[in-house]
C-alpha cells in the first residue's frame, strides 16, 4: 500500500493511503505534478505541504475520506441543481458535533481548498439544513452572527417578509 504524507499548516504529518487522495482534486494535481505515482519516485520522502489546513481539520478531512473511500468522485460543477441533496446519516453524525462552530466552517473551507466536491456539497447542505424553519434572530444566535441591523432596518425587512405566507 502506497502512503503519501500530508503536512498541515501547523506541521503535523499525516501518512495517507494513496487511493484515498483521489477524492481531492488539489492533492491529485500535486501528486501528478510531483510524479509521486512513478515507480522511481520515493513518495514517502516527498511530503505534500498543505499550508491552508490546520492539523485538527486535516485529521477530520482524512477521516471523512476514509469513510467515503470508493465512492464515485464528483467532477465539475453540480449540474443537477434540481435534485434535492440528502445528507446521509453517517455524514450528519460526523458533522453534528462541530456544527454551529468554527470547526465545521473550517472543515468546509478545507473541502473547498482541497477540492473535495462531495465533502463540500454535503457540508454546505448540512449548514443549510440548520436554517430550516428558523427565524433570522435564531440563526444569528445559533451561529453567533452579530446583529448589525438597526431596529428600523430589522422592522422594514420583517414587513417585507410578512407579505409572503
Amino acid at each position, binding site marked *: 500500500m502506497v502512503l503519501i504524507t500530508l503536512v498541515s499548516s501547523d506541521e503535523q504529518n499525516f501518512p495517507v493511503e494513496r487511493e484515498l487522495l483521489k477524492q481531492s482534486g488539489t492533492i491529485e494535481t500535486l501528486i501528478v505534478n510531483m510524479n509521486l505515482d512513478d515507480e522511481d519516485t520515493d513518495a514517502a520522502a516527498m511530503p505534500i505541504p498543505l499550508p491552508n489546513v490546520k492539523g485538527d481539520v486535516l485529521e477530520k478531512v482524512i477521516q471523512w475520506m476514509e469513510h467515503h473511500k470508493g465512492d464515485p468522485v464528483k467532477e465539475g460543477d453540480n449540474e443537477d441543481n434540481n435534485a*434535492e441533496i440528502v445528507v446521509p446519516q453517517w455524514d450528519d453524525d460526523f458533522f453534528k458535533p462541530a456544527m454551529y462552530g468554527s470547526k465545521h466552517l473550517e472543515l468546509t*473551507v478545507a473541502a473547498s481548498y482541497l477540492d473535495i466536491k462531495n465533502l463540500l456539497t454535503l457540508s454546505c447542505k448540512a449548514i443549510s439544513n440548520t436554517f430550516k424553519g428558523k*427565524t*433570522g434572530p435564531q440563526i444569528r444566535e445559533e451561529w453567533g452572527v452579530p446583529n448589525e441591523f438597526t431596529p428600523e432596518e430589522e422592522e422594514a425587512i420583517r414587513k417585507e*417578509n410578512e407579505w*409572503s405566507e
Partner: protein
Amino acid sequence: MNLSTLPKVILREMLQYVSIKDRLALRLTCRAFAKLVAETNAGYYDGICAVDAPTFDHKKQPCENLISVHIGGASFHGVTKKDEEINRILYLRNLLFRGILDDSIPFAFVRKLVRKVKIRNVHLIVNSGLQLEHAHQLITDYKESTLTMELLFRPKIGKLLMIPPMTEMKIALHNQSTWSLDLFLKLLAAQPNLTLEEPVEDMTLPNLERVVQLLSAIDHPRRVRFRVRNDTMSLSSHGIDALFEIVFVTTRDALLRLGYQRCLIELKNIDWKDDEEYADVYITNCDAWWRNSWQNPE
C-alpha cells in the same frame, strides 16, 4: 471564523440548498447575508416564479383584479393588478434572488438578445393576445426559419386569420368550444398544415366532401386534422361509397380510409352506431405519399 465570513464561493454553494422561506429568514441575520441572498440563484426550486390570474375567492367568484404570485416556496395572494403592486413583488423578488427567467423579462430584451442568432426551427406557443403580438414580431424576425405554432387561446376572427401560414399550426383550446364550419373553411385556406383539437360543427358527409373539394383544388401540399361528432357525420345513414372511394377499412382503431380526387381521408374512431362521440379526421392532398403508405398497411 463565523458563518458570514465564509468565502463567497462556499456561501453561494450553500445558498443553493436554502428554500425561499428560509432565504427570507436569512435576510434578517446580517447585511452580508441579505446581500448574498439577493445576489444568488434560488437553487433547486422548480417553477421559481409563476403568476395565477385570475384567482378565485372563497365564494368561488372570479376576482379578475387580483392575482397570486408564487416565488419558489412563497406565495403572495390578493395582489392587485396595478403597477405599484407588481413592482413591489418584483422588488421583493430582487431581494430574494437573481437569475430568474420568467415572463417579467421584457420581450423586447429577449428579442434583442436573440436577434443575431440563427434559429432553424422556431416553435411559438401562444396563450394570449400579447403573446400573439410578440409571435408576429418573431415571425417577421425569422422569416427564413421553419415556423410552427401552438395556439392555446382563441383570438378574434380577424386576428386568427391574419396569422401567416405556419409549417405546422395546432390550435388546442382545452375547453368545450367548437369550430363553426365557416371559420374552419377559412382557417383551412389560411393554414397549410392545420390541427384542431376541438371539434368542427356541422361536419356532415356532404360538408366533408366540400372540404376535400377545396383541398383537391389546391396545388400545394395541405394537411388538416380535426374532430367531428359521429352522429353529425352519420356514416350509417349515407351511401359513403357513392361520394368517396373506399381505400381501406379495419376494425382496429375503427379506421376507414377514403379517396377523393387528389385527397386522401382517414377517419379514426368512427362508430356506425353513433356510440362513440367523436371521430378523428385526417385529410391530405399529397396523394402519392398517402396512397403508398395507406395501401400497404402493416
